[in-house]
């Protein structure tokens, strides 16, 4: 009885031990840790360029098929050979188990963890996300080497 009484009287006046957070009010100031696994995102730099070249290694690494990659081939302006480029990188958030195997499998380090956790939607189709932003192109090889 002593213990519950102690907590009551301390909390009544100082709210020192209260561990609840007033959630909807503090959305702006809420910070997650660095390694928090929110969702999968494709890294884009300031010029809207990503690093993915549609090798589909992430698709085979995923245990339950939450990633789909569509690529196409176009001739390279310098050498004239056909090279692959990314058309669409689809991510099914509703099936992902956040295991991180795709991020480890990518040889170009294109995928990374996002910190967003507000995934609630009313409509299931909104959970299928396209990861490459519109109008983005792959980074050229010199920038990637840096």
């Amino acid at each position, binding site marked *: 009885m*002593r*213990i519950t009484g102690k907590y009551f009287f301390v909390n009544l006046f100082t709210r020192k031990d209260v*561990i609840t957070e007033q959630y909807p009010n503090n959305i702006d100031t809420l910070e*997650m840790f660095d*390694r928090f696994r929110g969702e999968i995102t494709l890294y884009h730099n300031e010029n809207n360029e990503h690093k993915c070249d549609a090798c589909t290694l992430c698709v085979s690494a995923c245990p339950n098929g939450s990633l789909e990659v569509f690529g196409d081939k176009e001739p390279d302006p310098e050498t004239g050979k056909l090279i692959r480029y990314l058309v669409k990188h689809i991510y099914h958030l509703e099936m992902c188990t956040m295991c*991180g195997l795709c991020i480890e499998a990518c040889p170009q380090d294109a995928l990374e963890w996002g910190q967003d956790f507000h995934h609630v939607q009313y409509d299931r189709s909104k959970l299928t996300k396209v990861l490459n932003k519109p109008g983005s192109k792959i980074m050229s090889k010199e920038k990637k080497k840096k």
Partner: protein
Amino acid sequence: MEEFLTDTLKTQEYFLNMGPQHPATHGVLRLLLKLDGEIIQNVDMDLGYIHRSIEKMCERDTYKQIVHLTDRLDYLSSHMNNEAVCLLVEKALNIEIPDRIKVIRTLVDELTRISSHVLWWGVMGMDIGALTTFMYGFREREMINDIFEETCGARLTMNYNVIGGVRYDLHENFVKRVKDFIVHFKKKLPEYDTLLSNNVIFRKRLEGIGYISKEDAVAYGLNGPAARASGVSCDIRKIHPYSAYDRAEFDEIIFTEGDSYARYKVRIKEMWESLRILEQLIDKIPEGEHRVKTKAVIKLPEGDYLQRVEAARGDFGVYVKSTGQKFPYRLKLRSPGFANLTALNKMTKGLKIADLVAILSTIDIVVPDIDR
């Protein structure tokens, strides 16, 4: 006189269904009780409400992908489940694991064990009726969850072990946070004792209830803290030491009374022992790499492999039969809760419904672990 009374009163036995949705069964578990008034004559269990065919899913996944599925079995000791699969593959392929990885795995293991036992304590209080213990337990778990989130990236299903080591190196705040936690927890554990363990009402609810003798415990295959309370020595950390358990000193806790209060005391003392292990290992983390490079596609040689791990609930085992391909031919998971639950019938013969709830919470089952 007794026969006269029972003949003339003509009471009738009736069935009561503690259905899948029930606040007291820790998960979706259906119990069919055959009652006479309030005395339980027989308990029948109906499992399988949360069967997700994890073993079947593991047959089509490569070994690297199996690890994330075992997280979700007994989600309160998820790190230990992952460790079982990783240790099995590493032993089969004869991969040498450096010391740093072993110590990191043991540290996170013991933190998971404390977290699981604290949740057990909170829910135990709630089942018996003292509703505040739930909140106090979660306060400690929040500290541990923060530690996990910073280092592993997730709070519950951590997926931190990979074949060949751990996924990320320890965060720089890890050691400091764990030391703060040890100091904080050492002050709070005696509070737990005052709140529940020494409470007269609590002890009267638990002493003498649900007795199971040592021979019966071995016959039913009980394991974990429930068996240690009956005198059976079954701690895998002592019998087949793995990771860094052979360099930390800790005692195996055995009581001989075999009733619910003994099971309760075993778990409280295990929390103290986990703290002891943490204290010994936290200062002596060796340097080294946190991940050993393995091949991209892992194929186990043909044969059968078994790995046992002391999860928070008991003896968790993974058995793999491999035919040389990159998928296992058959994977069997031995869950600690299954055997513990089968002994429920024996423990509750002749007791009342309130005692059934108390016993169920001292056995500490997690139903997704039972119907994998």
